[in-house]
C-alpha cells in the first residue's frame, strides 16, 4: 500500500507548482489554468484522506469541488473574454486601474 504521506506530498508539490505559476505567468488564461491545477491538487488530498479514513464524505466533497471549479471556469473565462474585447490584450499587468 502506498503510504498516505506520499499522496499528500504529491499534492503539496502540485499545489506549489500552481502557486508558482500564478506568480510567474502573465497570460490570464494560463493563470486560470494554474488555479485549476491548485484545485486539482486539493482534490487529490481529499480523495487520499477519504480512502485512508474509510469515509465517503471526502469524495462527495471532491464532487462538489469539481462542480464549483466548472462553474468558476465558465464564468471566469467569460470575464476574460469580455476583458479581452475592451483591452485587446490578455496581459494581467495591463489591468492596473486600481493602483494608487
Amino acid at each position, binding site marked *: *500500500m502506498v503510504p498516505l*504521506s506520499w*499522496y499528500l506530498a504529491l499534492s*503539496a508539490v*502540485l*499545489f506549489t507548482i500552481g502557486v508558482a505559476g500564478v506568480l510567474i505567468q502573465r497570460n490570464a488564461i494560463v493563470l486560470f489554468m494554474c488555479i485549476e*491545477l491548485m484545485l486539482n491538487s486539493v482534490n487529490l488530498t481529499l480523495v487520499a484522506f477519504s480512502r485512508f479514513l474509510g469515509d465517503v464524505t471526502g*469524495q462527495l466533497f471532491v464532487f462538489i469541488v469539481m*462542480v464549483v471549479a466548472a462553474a468558476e471556469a465558465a464564468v471566469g473565462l*467569460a470575464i476574460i473574454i469580455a476583458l479581452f474585447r475592451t483591452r485587446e490584450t490578455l496581459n494581467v499587468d495591463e489591468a492596473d486601474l486600481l493602483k494608487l
Partner: protein
Amino acid sequence: MEQFAQIQVSHLFFLAFASLAVVAAFNVILQRNPIYSAIGLIVVMCSLAGLFLTLSAEFIAAIQIIVYAGAIMVLFVFVIMLLNIREEDAKADRQKYLKFLAVPLFLALIGVVMAALKTIGNPAASPNVPGTVENVAEGMFTNYLLPFEATSVLILMAIVGSMFLARRESAEDTNEIETALNAANQPTAVEESSEEEVHA
C-alpha cells in the same frame, strides 16, 4: 534485493502517475504557448485520474476525466482559440522580480508543508473501499442532498452569468445602458432598467 521485494506494483503505478503529473505541471507553468499549457494541464488531470483509481475512487476518477479533462479543458482550449492568442509578446515584464521570487517561495512552501507532513505519520488504509458508485450515491442523496441541489443552482447561475458576461454588446444594449444611467441619476423614482436579454 529485499528492498525491491518490498516494492509493489501499486508503488510503481503511483510513481509513474506522480512523475507524469509533476512534469506536466511544470509544463503548464513554463510554456510560452497557451495551447501547450492547456495540453499539459490535460495530462495532469489524466494522471490524477489514474491516481484516483489507485485509491479505489472509481466514480471520482471517471468524473475527473469526463468533467475536467473533457469539458473544462475543452472550454479552455476553445477560448484560447477564440481569442486567437499567439505566443505572448516579449514585452518587458513589469513585475520582473516575481520570476526571481517564485523559486525561493516555491522551495519555502514545499519545505514548510513537508515539515508539517512529518506529524501525520502513516496510518493504515481502511479495509472498506468507499469509492464505489453506490457508496457515493448513497451518501450524496441522503445526507448531502442539500449541497447537491445547491450545486445545481450554482450551475444555473454560472450559465446565466457566463452568457451575459461574454456576449457582444449590441447597439440597443448600449442605448439601454445609457438610458438606465440617466434614469438612475435623476432624483425621481428609478425606472426599471431593462433586463438583459438572452441572446439565442
